[in-house]
């Protein structure tokens, strides 16, 4: 019983952390239909920016915000100079964002080197729940992830900006005929997605050591989390997808190795995509 409970708690934490890491991708993918293959590089950049800020003596929270802001600005520039010309050719945006990944990763390697870096954990200690001790920092990140998803839900479904964005997804042409500035909205969404990716990267840093390829691990998992959950269902879909990917991986890892668990989960995700290409939440 206590094992089951601790696995459940562990899976919940992993789900929420993965949801946070996938969120930027889900925003860009779900709202403007761009497959951002640079998502992994944005996570990595967020981590390195945080590390660099903290090296200059800035405390963790402002450092993470600065890092996210930096990545958001970079996303804005990427959208402005490249991506916006390719919205009608989704496959080219995939290739171009992959190019962004290649270039960014190399620049990271040149500027920061390939050594492992680490950031001190700002919230040490654990939270003893009897059956399992949760590291406070991980719990805080999970809670924050939930908060972000709820807040985005509020913005999307309870504000004027949200109505505009949803109108855009539903019917781009009609929305623009009604006077909605499509270019600007897309730009904002893309930059926000990049900002969220940077923030996720920043918040992940105290939980792992940083190297130029950390984003890679999350890129494919995030994709599967988003697509398995369902592209249209940005919020619930991302949560459910993250649970299916992250949670299943935790459970399988109990019986086999971590690497094998990930392989099995990927295979399952491919199965789900084949039979429910619109995601598990989509109505048939």
């Amino acid at each position: 019983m206590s094992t089951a409970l601790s696995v459940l708690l562990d899976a919940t934490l992993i789900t929420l952390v993965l949801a946070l890491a996938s969120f930027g991708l889900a925003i860009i993918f779900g709202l403007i239909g761009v497959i951002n293959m640079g998502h992994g590089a944005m996570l990595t950049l967020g981590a390195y920016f945080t590390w660099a800020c903290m090296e200059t003596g800035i405390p963790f929270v402002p450092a993470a915000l600065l890092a996210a802001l930096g990545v958001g600005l970079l996303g804005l520039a990427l959208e402005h100079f490249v991506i916006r010309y390719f919205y009608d050719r989704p496959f080219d945006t995939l290739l171009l964002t992959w190019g962004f990944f290649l270039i960014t990763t190399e620049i990271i390697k040149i500027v920061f080197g390939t050594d492992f870096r680490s950031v001190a954990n700002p919230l040490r200690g654990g939270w003893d729940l009897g059956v399992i001790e949760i590291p406070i920092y991980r719990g805080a990140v999970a809670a924050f992830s939930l908060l972000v998803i709820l807040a985005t839900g509020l913005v999307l479904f309870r504000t004027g900006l949200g109505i505009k964005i949803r109108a855009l997804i539903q019917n781009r042409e009609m929305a623009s005929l009604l006077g909605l500035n499509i270019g600007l909205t897309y730009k904002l969404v893309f930059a926000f997605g990049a900002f969220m990716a940077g923030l996720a990267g920043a918040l992940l840093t105290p939980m792992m050591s940083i190297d130029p390829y950390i984003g890679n691990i999350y890129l494919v998992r995030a994709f599967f989390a988003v697509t398995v959950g369902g592209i249209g269902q940005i919020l619930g879909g991302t949560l459910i997808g993250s649970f299916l990917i992250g949670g299943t991986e935790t459970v399988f890892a109990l019986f086999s190795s971590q690497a094998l668990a990930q392989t099995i989960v990927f295979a399952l995700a491919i199965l789900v995509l084949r039979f429910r290409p619109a995601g598990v939440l989509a109505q048939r």
Partner: protein
Amino acid sequence: MSDQAATTRMGPSSPHALVWLSEPVLALVVFVLLALLPIFLPGYVIYILPQYMLFGLMAMSLVLMWGFAGMVSFGQAAFFALGAYTMGLVMKAGGPINPGYIGLLLAALVGGGIAGLVGYFLFSAGVRPTYFVLVTLALSIMMEQIAVSQSQITGGWNGMYIDRLSLTFGRFGAVSLYDDAPMYWFVLPIMAAIYFGLRALVRGRFGKVLAGIRENEDRLISLGFRTPLWKTAAFALSGALACFAGALYGTHASFVAPSLGGVLFSTEVVVWVAIGGRQSLLGGLLAGIGVASLSNFLSAITPQYWQLVLGVLFVVTVLFFRGGIAGVLGRLVERHAGGPRA
């Protein structure tokens, strides 16, 4: 995605001064020059070039998918590594018949079989090109992780030693390929034969149907073509080729490690093919050989900036030269020859 290069390639040939500069002639010249190379340039170059030729074969396997079927695979290196591991296991097992032959054959069958299964599974559901990228990307991650985790079979991180194959001709004797020059002259004709074979294939009915699917799949469906089967066939062939090339690579390098099948190498192939020309078999082949050679050469001088330059070249190609180097050259020749040619 209608591309100038594709439509002109199918156009009628017109007799002109530059007509001899056509792709197969250029290919033949390159192959002959490569064949003569060991006479002038013994040593390391002759050792390493066959490996790059095999990379070139892998690049052609991607051209078949990308340029003709319109589906980009981010998992070609997974098949390449799978071939190398297959070869290694067969060579280790030995047997009464030359295990080298069995290994090569089995690699092609395994690669074709897996690609065929995965391909049919996905294409029969009408998977979009973007999802295909994700799934194949996942394939290469899975390949790498299986290779790492099943260490009792694959040797894990340490990799696996693979013996060099020898050519046996029954009663007529045998040729050892342990020296570099015989190995070189063994790989080169294979590469040339596969190039000309694939070229004949894509210029025939198979290639035309694939191009039709790429340009307008709905129309082909309404014309009665079972497009999932055609795409599956293309991917099976592509997987078989990549796996076969990987088996040869494994026995040539005498070694395979998990990173050979990983994401980074898989997507490097995409970069080669984009730069060489996504619709040109020769462009992909030469880009594979050329970029790999340059990487080796420049990595010694400027390891960091070279990869950066490749990334920038990739983006510039996608932005401005969709046909890659082959596309640009093709247009130049066209302009000077004054009209579309084959």
